[in-house]
């Protein structure tokens, strides 16, 4: 009896460790494939190189890094105000009836596959931008709008949870001292929920940076450094996604190298999101 129990317990540990094993293997493989090219052309040339011309063996991902940054900042500019407002509203103000309508809405928004966002972006948003601004439509702006919508559920849910986690006494104390509801929110609740809200933003950022399919369909995938939000752009993820199916040899390794950059960046973001609550002493 005891022995079989022991065996099963060991197996449980192994299962739990599989996730860890998985991530280790992933990191190892991506690095194994991608590192040779980085060491071949040099870190500086890879990261700061402005030209991406695989057919000539030139692999500079700087435009893509900038592209990812622009699109992500744009996405945050749209997603954060709307998301946090929604979170505050749902947590503090909304009546149960309204909550009952909006909450399932957010969950559905979270569940919609990214190709569908891409489809919508491609068929509705890109043409609108094209008509409004007279350019080709595929742009940083299109990417930001769609990604902004995609990260809303992340920001809303996590922010809402941290707002709701603020002890009731804080709010009650503030109201007792004569503040209005809004003042209580601004001066007491939000500051207390600050770390959670910041976490949500960081996680939203990670989500935006990691999105591939939708981005490929709406940003134009140009290899130039975007000059404005109306420029077409290629993100790090788009770089991998659009050429992966066709690349071989060195070119493919360069895509894995792009993957390394992405991987490290997102890991850092995730770590950051975890550490902040600890620092703020939640």
């Amino acid at each position, binding site marked *: 009896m005891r022995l079989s129990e022991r065996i099963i317990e060991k197996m449980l540990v192994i299962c739990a460790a599989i996730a860890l094993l998985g991530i280790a293997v992933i990191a190892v493989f991506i690095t194994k494939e991608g590192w040779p090219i980085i060491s071949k052309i040099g870190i500086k040339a890879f990261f700061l190189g402005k*030209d*991406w*011309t*695989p*057919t*000539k063996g030139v692999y500079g991902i700087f*435009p893509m890094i900038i592209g990812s940054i622009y699109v992500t900042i744009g996405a945050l500019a749209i997603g954060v105000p709307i998301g946090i407002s929604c979170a505050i509203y749902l947590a503090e103000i909304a009546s149960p009836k309204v909550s009952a309508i909006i909450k399932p809405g957010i969950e559905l928004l979270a569940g919609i596959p990214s190709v569908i966002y891409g489809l919508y972006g491609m068929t509705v948003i*890109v*043409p609108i931008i*094209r008509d409004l601004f007279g*350019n*080709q*439509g*595929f742009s940083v702006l299109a990417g930001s709008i769609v990604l902004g919508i995609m990260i809303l559920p992340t920001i809303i849910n996590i922010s809402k949870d941290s707002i709701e986690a603020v002890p009731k006494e804080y709010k009650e104390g503030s109201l007792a001292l004569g503040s209005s509801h809004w003042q209580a929110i601004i001066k007491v609740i939000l500051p207390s929920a600050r770390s959670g809200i910041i976490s949500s933003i960081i996680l939203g950022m990670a989500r935006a940076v990691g999105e591939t399919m939708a981005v*490929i369909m709406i940003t*134009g*995938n*140009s*290899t*130039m450094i975007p000059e404005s939000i109306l*420029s*077409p752009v*290629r993100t790090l993820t788009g770089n991998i996604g*659009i*050429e992966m*199916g*066709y*690349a*071989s*040899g060195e*070119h493919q390794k360069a895509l894995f190298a792009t993957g390394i950059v992405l991987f490290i960046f997102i890991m850092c973001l995730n770590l950051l999101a975890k550490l902040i609550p600890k620092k703020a002493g939640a």
Partner: protein
Amino acid sequence: MVRGKVKLILCLIVVMTLIMTACSGQSDTVETEKKILINGSTSVQPLIEELASAYKEKHPGAIIDIQSGGSGVGIKSAIEGVVDIGMSSRELKSDEKMLKEFRIATDGIAVILNPENPINDLTIEQLKKIYTGEITNWKEVGGKDATITVVTREEGSGTRGAFTELIGVEEILNSSITQGSTGGVMTAVGSDENAIGYASYGSVKNSANLKIISIDGIPCDEENIYSGAYKISRPFLMVTKEEPTGIAKDFIDFILSDEGQQIVEDNNYLKTNR
């Protein structure tokens, strides 16, 4: 009560699938001779899909798996023996010549514009300058005063390789919109008045929302592609590592037969022998 039922259903699903996969795992080993794997150019792929359907009608039980990946991948996979046949939409380079190649069709690369664009012809020089970014506005070639939206395929695409080589472009301007497939280019050009793109003639020929322009005065059509007057054309190749055997050989023979070549023509590509 509910929990018991749910557990039961779960168990049933698990068991069913295990049986399914176990059985199919076995049939897989028995059938390897009747299965071939093809990958490569997305330009060639639609044609091969059509040919494969026709072939399967005559030989039920034959399994032909077709993946995309681009000419580069098709050639490399053939070299490595990972696939039975690779599809390529460009000539083999000198270091790829160890493969056996079978030319199954000729395809023109059409230069396409949006129907709203008044331009009907461009010289190769103008085309080259548009794609390198020297010419940026349609008015420089006699059109409207509007910025040209340059659409291209991605690196690794056989169509892009053939196009750039044939018109003599070293580097396509990097503000061009990159689409990952023939269809993607067609969609991009079809929805933007000021766009220009290039794609397989066979794919765009009957497209209602695209305009195919002539190059150096020569219209892009079968006659001119065949005679070579229309300069931007490339072969469709099926490449194999060794001399093909079994279904692979049979399939290629089928493609090169009259029936197969008729299908090629029906799909707006040029037969190899006229």
